[in-house]
């Protein structure tokens, strides 16, 4: 599975989002599930899935799905895979 699809799955499962939501264009607080509490759950799920540890600044800056991809790229994950 591609990195992008793995990340979509992480978003969907950790935030318990329905299939109807377009995760690729999702931003922080677009849905009530992605609030400050959900954000930390999402971070933990991403860290577990990709075996990485985000910097505190990256946790704060992760304001959208596309930003999450950028952060994974910065952490050495091949986001084009």
């Amino acid at each position: 599975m591609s990195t992008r699809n793995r990340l979509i799955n992480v978003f969907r499962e950790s935030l318990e989002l329905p299939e109807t939501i377009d995760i690729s264009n999702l931003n922080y607080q677009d849905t009530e599930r992605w609030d400050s509490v959900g954000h930390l759950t999402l971070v933990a799920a991403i860290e577990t899935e990709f075996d990485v540890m985000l910097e505190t600044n990256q946790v704060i800056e992760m304001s959208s799905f596309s930003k999450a991809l950028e952060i994974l790229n910065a952490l050495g994950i091949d986001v084009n895979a």
Partner: protein
Amino acid sequence: MPSESMSTPDRRPLLGLVAVVTGASRGIGAATASCLAARGANVVLTCQHNEDALVNSAVALEAAHGISALAIVADNADESQVATVYRAVHSKFKRLDILVNNAGILGDAMIGMITQSMLDRVFAVNLSGAINNMQLAARLMRRNGRGAIINVSSIMGIRGNPGQVTYCASKAGLIGATLSAAKELAPHGIRVNAVAPGYIDTDLICGLDPVLHAQRIASICVGRPGSAEEVARAIVFLASDEASYITGQVLGVDGGMVI
């Protein structure tokens, strides 16, 4: 009728768990690391300066208790160095169960003689550093849905002491952080408590004026200083499942000291 687990205590109740202990090269931190390792926990020891002592402790704990120990030199006041500790924990163990926020420094000065640099340094090590450790630790603990954080405050953070405004404020702040973190992290299975040691026989008191030392002893109901091991046992209790329903508490370990 007591259950079997109550009548037959587990000698290594922390077997396989992973604990970070800051300020672990001596005193309460070293005693806590030893106590945790004796109960089966893998330990990650940090301190700012004393690398040789830290490495020797790690080697000794591994040999004595058959656990894994990491020694990492990190300035508790430096966010990036603290982050390095947790990256190492993640890399080696993939989990974290216990954080003992013990690193701390004194900052003794009467009002009117407290410098900004003293304020900055004491708060950076004793309070900001502890909060940074908590938030990084909590992120690892959340993955397993469990964890215990124990902050080492001080009786001085509750009662105050002349000449220690800076130190007492930092330790009082740590209690406030403990209470807030306990509420925030409880839904994620993470308990947060503090201990408030009284007059403990560590390096910090060995140079004290004999008259002052005698006054301190006179203020303690049990009539003697506490040992680092006695504080460590209280910390390990709070870290263990024996304290599974305890969070947001400040446990005095002071022999009935009155200030």
